[in-house]
């Protein structure tokens, strides 16, 4: 529980917010080896350990652990559930002061608000400056926002497959997901917590639509093609004839077991509101003025050639702004077949780059 209230971009104040977090590895006595990993839209604090609801491995277990690129023998890795989410941190499914569930009374958040929560956690832990802040996708947005708004709090920034602003296309896909949730009769204005009838159908559709944006067309073709699911011929009906349909349905329904529909609304909204330049007078370079002339953090941006959600051009845009600000920045576009999700999957070049950047 944060001792200080969080002043939010909306003008509202969130008091007594709880931040649920996990740590991996030992914090050095001088607290110089802390790495904060920021999770993506539907991620959580279980970056390197088994998820308590699904029983599945942590979402970045291939990257975080003893001897791995983010080496917990050397670093103390901290990963916290963002506010607005539903894995223990305060969000729309939490109780408000009056003892009832927030639902849609929960304040609308921004990425910067999430970062304020994370910095609040660092304050509680007594960590003045992180060794690094690391994140992919929405986690990358948080890493950039932390660097822009709290320039003294980290020595390195590693932002993977991310963007400094949500594009019209990004917002459009999120709006499809939100409308699917809100069109579910079980959603009931977000007030669905009492009787267990939750808007699973809407949330599953939201997840299905979003999931497509995380993959590449070539990746989908490679994985499924036009192959049929457990049958020899088309059914001339609307069952999941194709493997890709079956896969998406599975992804959608699995997601509803572990995620709150209102959290999905709030977090996608925060991402849509994200525009780092807008927060800093309209010029992105000004967002990074705290890192001018090599005195600030070292930045490393990584994009993937098949990521059409946050394509390489978005990373280059950030790199140009950092260069204009005089910040120390490196950038590489890696080749990987998996689209946006590449940052979570088997890409040896990413492992090398992450390890190399954190060790140097």
């Amino acid at each position, binding site marked *: 529980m944060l001792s200080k209230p969080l002043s939010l971009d909306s003008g509202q104040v969130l008091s007594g917010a709880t931040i649920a977090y996990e740590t991996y590895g030992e914090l050095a006595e001088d607290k110089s080896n802390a790495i904060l990993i920021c999770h993506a839209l539907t991620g959580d604090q279980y970056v390197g350990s088994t998820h308590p609801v699904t029983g599945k491995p942590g979402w970045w277990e291939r990257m975080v652990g003893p001897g791995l690129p983010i080496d917990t023998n050397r670093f103390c890795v901290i990963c916290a559930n963002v506010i607005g989410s539903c894995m223990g941190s305060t969000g729309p499914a939490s109780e408000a002061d009056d003892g009832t569930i927030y639902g849609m009374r929960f304040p609308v958040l921004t990425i910067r608000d999430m970062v304020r929560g994370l910095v609040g956690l660092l304050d509680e832990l007594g960590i003045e400056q992180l060794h690094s802040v690391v994140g992919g996708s929405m986690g990358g947005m948080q890493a950039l926002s932390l660097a822009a708004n709290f320039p003294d709090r980290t020595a390195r920034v590693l932002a993977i497959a991310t963007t400094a602003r949500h594009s019209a296309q990004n917002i459009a896909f999120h709006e499809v997901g939100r409308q699917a949730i809100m069109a579910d009769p079980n959603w009931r204005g977000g007030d669905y917590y009492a009787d267990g009838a939750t808007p699973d159908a809407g949330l599953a559709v939201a997840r299905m639509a979003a999931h497509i944006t995380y993959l590449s067309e070539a990746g989908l073709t490679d994985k499924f093609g036009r192959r049929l699911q457990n049958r020899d011929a088309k059914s001339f009906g609307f069952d999941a004839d194709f493997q890709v349909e079956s896969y998406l349905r599975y992804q959608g329904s699995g997601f509803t077991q572990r995620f709150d529909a209102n959290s999905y609304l709030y977090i996608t909204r925060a991402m849509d509101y994200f525009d780092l330049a807008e927060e800093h007078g309209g010029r992105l370079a000004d967002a990074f003025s705290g890192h001018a002339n090599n005195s600030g953090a070292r930045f490393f941006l990584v994009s993937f050639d098949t990521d059409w959600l946050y394509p390489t051009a978005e990373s280059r845009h950030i790199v140009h702004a950092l260069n204009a600000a005089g910040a120390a920045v490196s*950038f590489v*576009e890696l080749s990987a077949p998996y689209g946006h999700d590449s940052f979570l999957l088997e890409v040896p*070049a990413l492992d090398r780059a992450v390890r*190399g950047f954190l060790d140097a």
Partner: protein
Amino acid sequence: MIAQFGGSLMPDGQTLRPDLAAIARNISPGTRVLDIGCGDGTLLSHLREEQQVDARGMEIKSELVERCVTKGLSVVQGDADRDLSEYPDKAFDYTILSQTLQTAARPDHMLDQLLRVGREAFVSFPNFAQWRTRTALMFGGRMPVTRSLPVSWFETDNIHHVTIADFRELIAQKGVAVEGCWFFSGGRAISPVGANWRAEFAVFKLSR
């Protein structure tokens, strides 16, 4: 490799190639440098460690960018033809273009960018008028494949072969001043006498 500079000049991996050493010697300590086509960051590391330079790089190959990042260097993957225009005016004291001018889509535009982004620019390139190249063309009647230009015409990255005399003419036309020039053959510095005939490589320091 675009152009081969000697073969066994860095047996211990410590000594700088002589063209890079000439550049390093002519960079003031504590300045800001952008090395375009910085490769694995050998020159940048040297400048940072020996001369306390704020050393930045641009490199087109992702594997080489990775190696630079592992050395703690700030290197951006990019194509100089396209990305140099994104840097602010006079963002650097020096820009460096090593053995890359002859691969640019428009070497003249590239020169303009080098001197816009940097107050001064170092440019090095293989000299197509060196006697080995001339004799290979004259007597072989084919595009030369020599120790300084080891790749056949159909697969070389060198799309704008240039001689020292050509280069001097271009910079004179542009009103660019020569602050210094150095010439190399067989992996060693040579005198400027008859450089267009004798030199395999040239390094120019330019300002506007």
